[in-house]
């Protein structure tokens, strides 16, 4: 992806967004005047201010947001570590990869809310349920990405390691890790962006707190402005984390990893496919 930024391209980037906001404003102010269902930009802004002031009908928004972010971080971190370890194994041994191919496929195919349903009825432990559901979903793409990364380590270099009698420790830190680092960052990036989109789905049922509960509450009371506000907040969080942490990290690691064979097949976080 081309990240060169010029004033002209920035203007072009922003123009349609500004136009969309304008259309939204005009439509909700003049045509669809029904602020509960068709919220105006001002209404959404007021809701954002209320969220920042920590005011809400069912508990403090900060508490809910913290609960959601905590779940997301735990599930994402846990899923990432577990899936990376398994992925390395699967990249080395073909049968491990084959063995996990259906479970991983099923993990990805079943939406998170259904995982929540199943875990709720089976385990009944409330706090762990959404975390577990998210973890399963986030681990699957990381697993596939890591296995791909490990399998892409060139055979000739492995032979070189053998011929120079490189020890396990050195091999791990100076050979495997640098090789799969770009894949790991790309995986982390994809799964985080994905996690922030679906964490709400896991939360929406049967829990005492979390943004998902808030959104569900507002949806039930047919009041749309706070939903849009929360949507904007989550979107902004996802983008900020992506641009400020993952994108620079990925660029740095890629520069270190080059030149690589088959550079076209480099994973590129944003263009890799995300699933809901």
């Amino acid at each position, binding site marked *: 992806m081309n990240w060169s930024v010029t004033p002209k391209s920035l203007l072009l980037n922003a123009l*349609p967004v500004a136009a969309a906001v304008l259309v939204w404003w005009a439509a909700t102010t003049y045509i669809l005047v029904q602020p509960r269902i068709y919220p105006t930009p001002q209404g959404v802004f007021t809701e954002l201010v209320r969220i920042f002031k920590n005011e809400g009908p069912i508990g403090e928004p900060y508490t809910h947001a913290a609960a959601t972010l905590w779940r997301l971080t735990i599930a994402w971190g846990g899923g990432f570590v577990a899936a990376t370890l398994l992925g390395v194994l699967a990249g080395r041994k*073909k*049968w491990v990869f*084959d063995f996990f191919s259906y479970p991983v496929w099923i993990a990805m*195919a079943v939406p998170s809310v259904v995982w929540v349903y199943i875990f709720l*009825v089976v385990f009944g432990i409330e706090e762990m349920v959404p975390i577990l559901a998210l973890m399963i979903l986030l681990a699957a793409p990381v697993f596939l990405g890591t296995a791909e990364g490990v399998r892409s380590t060139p055979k000739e270099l492995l032979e070189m390691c053998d011929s120079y009698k490189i020890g396990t420790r050195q091999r791990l830190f100076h050979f495997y890790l640098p090789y799969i680092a770009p894949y790991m960052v790309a995986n982390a990036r994809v799964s985080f962006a994905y996690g922030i989109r679906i964490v709400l789905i896991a939360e929406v049922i049967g829990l005492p707190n979390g943004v998902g509960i808030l*959104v569900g509450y507002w949806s039930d009371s047919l009041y749309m402005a706070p939903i849009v506000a929360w949507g904007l907040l989550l979107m902004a969080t996802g983008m900020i984390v992506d641009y400020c942490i993952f994108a620079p990290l990925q660029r740095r690691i890629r520069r270190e990893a080059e030149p690589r064979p088959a550079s076209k097949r480099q994973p590129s976080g944003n*263009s890799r496919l995300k699933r809901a």
Partner: protein
Amino acid sequence: MERFKEYSAQIASLIIILLGWEISALIMDTRALPPASESFADLVQLIRTGDAFGPLGSTLFRTTCGFALGFVMGCSYGIAAVLSRTFDDLSKWLLQIAMFTPTLILIFLFLVIFGRTSFTVILLIGLVVLPVVGTYIRDSLRDFDEELDGMAASYKAPLRQRVFEMYLPFLIPSMLAAGRIGFTLSWKVGFLAEIFGFSNGLGWQIRTTYQIYDVAKLLAWLSLFILTLLVIEQMMRFAERRVVKW
């Protein structure tokens, strides 16, 4: 032999899951976890009585329409973004926004704003699929070998010939891959929309069985959901192998 090992490893995992499910259900012996055999009996009955086909059909219909919409829009986006730098710039932020918006928020907004109709779900699916297919097509089109353009220019191939004999065949594998991933996504988004407020389809059935705590049936419907997706995905893989012979 290699093939056989691959298949047996794949199937072993499924058997272990099913066995684990069956055994733990027998040990736990609660309503919360019915044995696998009971769920499958329910599934077979759903199919035999034909009760399965109504919900399956309506979910499949919405998913297919939404996917088709998103796929066409995504391909057009990808091609346009490669052809025109300006269009790429114009759409960049909008696409990022579409990618980072939580799916649940979109579902709630769409269902309330546009009403609980099939059309809403189709539109919703289209909108979620568009950026995924779009970026895939865009990125693979950018990988097009410029040397082939030079070759076509030196053989004076006219635009029509270039489009139909060069660019389209080049895109077909990407389109099939993007289509497969896009369809999985559509299937899930359509299903979620049904869970969160739609009164028919597979998602609705699962929600209902959850609410009346009929776990065996819930798992039966879920299996139907997974099996359908599996069949469609295998069909698409088959098509991929048949079409992409080179």
